């Protein structure tokens, strides 16, 4: 079997697993619903409480899990490709914090209440943080994993402080802040997702188109230029896609860390260094990780729930540690 066919077959297999996870996300929870009722509800023929739970409660969070997981994973793959930095992740590099900050400012200071209004602030914030982290983290010698990660940590700390400052003026929001800051799939409704989806779709398309260019870029800036590529144009296009994806994901799910870090690495293990395949695998694996985390969160502490962001952090931090211990970064 040629590698292309094998990769394609694995991808299809993973897509089937994702379909199962999505079904589980509809069926499992504090109120377990059997498969036939779930399917009936999904096809529109179900009725009663079960159908309501499936469609109205679990529908939006499953959709959010799919969209946010995909967006964060693809953004992480792009970031790792463009910066040639194995530790790049929208959460670690502060991009999600930037999106969060401007959303908070839009809501509590400018009084923006509609999603259509504040989604733009999420994009602006993500863009701001991306530029800031990149400028600080990359000198003439280029961005090293250490300097980018530290710049991300510093920017996150700074932005989180400003977020706290904004929220402090209002004690009620402060108590919501604790829920918001862990990252959750239940914070928004289906309407919000519908507003954000087109942006994530555009970001995804740009990312897919950039795949071959990222492969050239992974050989180094000089090599990519030699291959007839405008490195600057690639960077700008990738940054635009990252901003669309991260801004969209944060607007619907809050600041979730580690999806963008873990998923591209798992994808790389499965398909090797070709970014076209890494991005394709991230599209499937990202939602899978986030939805599995969300489903686990519903089941482990019943009848309460654990936010998906918490479980992803618990799964992701060991991966980061393993990466730092691994050969690629330890040369530093």
């Amino acid at each position, binding site marked *: 079997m040629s590698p292309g066919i094998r990769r394609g077959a694995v991808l299809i297999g993973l897509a089937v697993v994702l379909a199962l996870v999505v079904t589980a996300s509809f069926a499992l929870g504090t109120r377990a619903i059997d498969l036939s009722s779930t399917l009936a509800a999904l096809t529109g023929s179900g009725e009663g409480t079960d159908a309501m739970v499936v469609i109205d409660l679990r529908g939006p969070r499953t959709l959010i899990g799919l969209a946010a997981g995909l967006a964060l994973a693809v953004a992480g793959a792009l970031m790792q490709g463009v910066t040639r930095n194995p530790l790049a992740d929208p959460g670690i590099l502060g991009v999600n914090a930037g999106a969060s900050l401007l959303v908070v400012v839009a809501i509590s200071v400018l009084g923006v209440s509609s999603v259509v209004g504040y989604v733009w602030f999420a994009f602006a914030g993500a863009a701001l943080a991306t530029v800031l982290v990149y*400028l*600080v983290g990359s000198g*003439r010698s280029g961005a090293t994993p250490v300097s980018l*990660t*530290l710049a991300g*940590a510093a*920017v996150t700390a700074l932005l989180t*402080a400003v977020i706290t400052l904004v929220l*402090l003026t209002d004690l009620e929001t402060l108590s919501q802040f604790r829920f918001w800051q862990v990252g959750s799939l239940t914070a928004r409704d289906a309407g919000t997702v519908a507003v954000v989806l087109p942006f994530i779709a555009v970001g995804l398309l740009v990312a897919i188109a950039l795949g071959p260019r990222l492969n050239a870029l992974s050989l180094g800036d000089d090599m990519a230029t030699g291959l007839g590529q405008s490195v600057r144009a690639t960077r700008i296009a990738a940054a635009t896609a990252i901003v669309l994806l991260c801004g969209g994901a944060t607007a619907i799910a809050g600041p979730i860390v580690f999806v963008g870090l873990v998923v591209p690495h798992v994808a790389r293990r499965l398909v090797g260094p070709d970014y076209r395949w890494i991005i394709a695998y991230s599209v499937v694996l990202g939602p899978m990780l986030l939805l599995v985390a969300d489903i686990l969160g519903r089941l482990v502490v019943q009848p309460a729930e654990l*936010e998906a962001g918490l479980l992803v952090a618990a799964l992701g931090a060991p991966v980061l540690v393993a990466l730092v211990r691994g050969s690629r970064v330890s040369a530093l």
Partner: protein
Amino acid sequence: MKRYILVSGAFLVVLLALAFLSLAIGGFGDPPSNVLSALAGGDDRFTVVRLRLPRLVLAVLVGACLGIAGTVFQTLLGNPLASPDLIGVSQGASAAAAGAFLLGGLSGPAVSVAAFAGALVVAAIITVLSWRNGISSYRFVLIGIGIAFLVQAFLGYLLTRADLKEAQGALVWLVGSIGTPGWDEIGITAILAGVLALSMLPLRPALRMLQLGDDTATGLGVSVTRSRALLTVVAVGFAAIAVAVAGPVLFVAFVAGPIARRVVRSSEASLVASALVGAVVVVAADFLGQRALGDARVPVGVVTSLVGAPYLLWLLARDNRSRGTA
């Protein structure tokens, strides 16, 4: 040496001036007509002695402890980025303190002990995980940042599980703030800080020699592994007692050492100067937080982050530029 004493004296004067300012026009209550007479028991005694003095004393203690903790960590790892608030040690103390408070219903010294245990566990985990033929300081810092995310998630979990009223009480461990502490709380912190300071005294020569490199230190008769372990435990202790009462007041530990070093103009870590700088930073930040935004009371941790994070960014940007031109 002379400059060292001079500079420390200058920091002390700044600290006293800030202290006077905080007592005179700090938050809560009307400005007293005469601070000194109030301290001596005159008018406005309540505002000054009951409301502002405890806050001021705790701010000084917290700042001093964080300053020392940061400097020892930075010196041990030979890296200005290895301060307890960046690598997750402060967050570990926070999560453990919040856990003790929310889950165990503990208070007072028990919370400090829990914070110490949490910080120590985090420090041990980072050390073990970053150990590979010795410690590389950057590996240590990066793994620390990863652990910090994990601990932060755990803290987030604790806060979302608690009922709203208790969570309000535990929010201090999320943002870092100095409320209106009781004298018993201050007393415990002061005693613990005193014990740690005493145990620091015999370790100072070893710390000085470790700066010269492990090989040189060994040659000078220092038992490197033992000294490092003891110094780490004491530094973790300093960070933990500060965090137990005030939460993770970020960036104080990070900036105190470098500022002290720069002003003293010595390559050596100066613990007294760092403690004074830490105290000045926390008192000033708390004063700003209470006063700068009109009626809004901003926790000290927010102010220190707003000031400290740009400093870290500047440091990184400068390092990159110099590395690029070199």
